């Protein structure tokens, strides 16, 4: 290890930092200095270990000793015992929760590694523009196995037994979908990959396509073999230029290597893949609308049945699966359905990728086994809420989902439990909200999104959602009445019952779930004309506290509309008629003189 014999890694994630990890670093450095070990040991602060619950975490290299619950005063013992005498500090070592024996190497603390990467197995590992790196990770081996060792119905049987369900949101069993498409008469059939990722805050499909495009191509070919389809189409939004570029490279390479095209692996099976670009309409994630869009028609849904498996693209049997669903296929073929079915819960098998976003420390992409709780995701993998604020809600399922609260934190995440809690799995966006978020405004945000994205074909969605949005707007402006809440409730039910496609049927979800979980906030907006998160501009007023104001004029200079009046060293006043409530004065004031009522 070059100059340094030891490295001491101290977690600098927000969780550990709040329990004094910075002080640990300082104490360690002081001890190192006191013992003249500066050229021998180096202390390094790292990012989050994902074990926030047991923080602060300290790891010593090269022997991989893994200490947990470390306190600043333990620094002396770590240096004296571990570094100088070479004896590990037993009492601080992470213990296996089952055997209670100290575990030394952090690599073996599997119990605490909550994430399991199946879909993301190659993401961030291989060069996505080099097919050989994919092959080196057993790529295209599953396709080989299917073409040479399995009959199409056996492939379908494997997928069925694995319990894999559609990762696009609704969770329809993938094997059953393939079976229906296989039973439809051919020979002209299509395999479609739905890469029209539209939920605000979701980016897992893009990441898979950009980081591991071949996993999707291989799975599409396997699907083609299983259902007897010679053609594959990827419907991808034009806003994903990088994903499109890497897919094109991947398709070209696969064709050159003979892994796509005529007579793959010397068999009778031929399969080609083409790209189709979407213009980024949310409704085109719905499979019938997606198919119409691919045909060059307006992206509007049609009534099912007939299902695409019977009559889809160009009226031919078509199987549509989501990117993440496809990315699961090859490992299932190679490792067997029992392996896959052993992960997750009784009804939801395998893993799910979530895009963690919002007021959370470790924003990013995570892949967790089904059945994990929201608490584990938010507080252990996500590192907790930003700036130590209080957790309020987590929005899952995008505009079709709902807000889950404190009381849902320990609910295992499955397709059914999320629906029962008033939300849904959706494509896997997970937006975390804290006490500064106004739930009425959140509902309005999602409603405005659906209003914008509604294709306008059916009245409940086109007109109903617009009315919902208007009522919410009225409430956030302080003009709402209690009758409006009843109206909201009724309208939500009518839209859900009568809308044509999934977009309309689920669009009232954000309203219903916030009404259910944050009733108080609605009432406050209506009766007290108050927004507790200070987000609704029409319900708040900025004032200057004469006690604290020093007359420094900083706020008056910054105010974009010159609403603040006052002489130097005199108390300033905000002219409420001019104030646009932009909040600049609050940010500017160094004396805490600006407050909101």
């Amino acid at each position, binding site marked *: 290890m070059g100059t340094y014999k030891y490295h001491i890694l101290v*977690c600098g994630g927000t969780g550990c930092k709040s329990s004094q990890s910075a002080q640990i670093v300082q104490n360690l450095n002081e001890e190192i200095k006191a013992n003249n070990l500066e050229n021998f040991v180096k202390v390094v602060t790292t990012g989050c*270990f994902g074990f926030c619950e047991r923080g602060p975490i300290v790891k010593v290299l090269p022997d991989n000793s893994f200490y947990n619950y470390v306190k600043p005063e333990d620094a002396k013992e770590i240096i004296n015992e571990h570094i100088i005498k070479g004896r590990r500090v037993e009492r601080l070592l992470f213990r296996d929760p089952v055997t209670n024996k100290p575990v030394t190497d952090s690599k073996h603390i599997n119990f605490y590694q909550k994430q399991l990467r199946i879909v993301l197995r190659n*993401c961030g590992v291989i060069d996505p523009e080099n097919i050989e790196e994919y*092959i080196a990770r057993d790529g295209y081996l599953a396709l080989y196995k299917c073409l040479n060792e399995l009959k199409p119905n056996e492939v379908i049987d494997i997928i069925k037994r694995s319990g894999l369900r559609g990762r696009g949101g609704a969770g329809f069993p993938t094997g059953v979908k393939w079976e229906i498409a296989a039973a439809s008469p051919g020979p002209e059939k299509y395999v479609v990959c739905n890469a029209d990722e539209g939920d605000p805050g979701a980016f897992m499909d893009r990441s898979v396509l950009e*980081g591991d495009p071949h996993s999707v191509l291989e799975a599409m070919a396997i699907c083609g073999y299983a259902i007897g389809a010679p053609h594959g189409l990827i419907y991808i939004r034009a806003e994903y230029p990088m994903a499109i570029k890497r897919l094109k490279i991947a398709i070209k390479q696969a064709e050159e290597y003979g892994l796509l095209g005529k007579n793959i692996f010397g068999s009778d099976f031929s399969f080609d893949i083409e790209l189709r670009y979407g213009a980024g309409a949310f409704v085109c994630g719905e499979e019938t609308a997606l198919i119409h869009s691919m045909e060059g028609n307006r992206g509007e849904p049609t009534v099912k049945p007939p299902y695409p498996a019977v009559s889809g693209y160009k009226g031919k049997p078509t199987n549509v699966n989501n990117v993440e669903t496809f990315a699961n296929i090859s490992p299932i073929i190679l490792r067997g359905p029992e392996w896959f079915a052993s992960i997750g819960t009784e009804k939801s098998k395998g893993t799910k990728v979530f895009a963690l976003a919002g007021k959370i420390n470790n*924003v*990013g992409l995570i892949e967790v086994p089904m059945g994990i709780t929201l608490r584990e995701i938010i507080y252990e993998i996500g590192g907790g809420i930003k700036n130590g604020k209080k957790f309020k809600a987590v929005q899952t399922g995008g505009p079709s989902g709902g807000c889950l609260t404190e009381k849902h934190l320990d609910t295992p995440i499955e397709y059914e439990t999320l629906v029962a809690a008033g939300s849904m799995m959706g494509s896997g966006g997970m937006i975390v909200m804290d006490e500064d978020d106004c739930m009425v405004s959140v509902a309005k945000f999602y409603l405005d999104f659906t209003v914008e994205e509604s294709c306008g074909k059916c009245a409940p969605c086109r007109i109903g959602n617009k009315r919902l949005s208007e009522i919410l707007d009225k409430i956030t402006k302080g003009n709402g009445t209690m009758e409006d809440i009843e109206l909201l409730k009724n309208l939500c039910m009518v839209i859900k019952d009568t809308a044509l496609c999934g977009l309309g049927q689920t669009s009232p979800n954000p309203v219903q779930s916030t009404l259910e979980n944050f009733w108080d906030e609605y009432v406050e907006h209506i009766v007290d004309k108050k927004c507790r998160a200070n987000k609704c501009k029409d319900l708040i007023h900025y004032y200057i506290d004469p006690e604290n104001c020093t007359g420094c004029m900083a706020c008056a200079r910054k105010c974009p509309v010159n609403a603040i009046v006052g002489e130097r060293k005199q108390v300033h006043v905000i002219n409420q008629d001019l104030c646009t409530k932009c909040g600049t004065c609050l940010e500017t004031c160094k004396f805490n003189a600006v407050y909101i009522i």
Partner: protein
Amino acid sequence: MAKITSLDDLRKIKKNLEEQISLREKAENPESLVQIKVGMATSGIAAGAKEIFTFLVDELEKRNIPAIVTQTGDMGYSYAEPTVEVKLPGQEPVVFGWVTKERADEIIEKYIRNGELVEGIIPQNYKTIDDK
């Protein structure tokens, strides 16, 4: 490229690549072939990964350190982008986050040359299917 028609062809590519990697590992000079991956999905590039990639390629060449720099997909650490993984021969790979040009310089001078760890390490917090 001849078309792949058999399992042997697939295995050959896998073996070739594995051999190349093990050659790198067993090379005489421990500094001979450092392997670096830069997370370059849309989010990484938006955070400046392209500049870091170019910087690493240029600087390693200038400073005469034989290394292989490749791009890869999203490592999942959106909060810490750009992210760079460095694998020194015979050692576990280390991921560094929040990589600026200054930190990239530090990674080259301290970690790659001396094995000295620098700030910004992101510990691996997941299992993969290969671990089982």
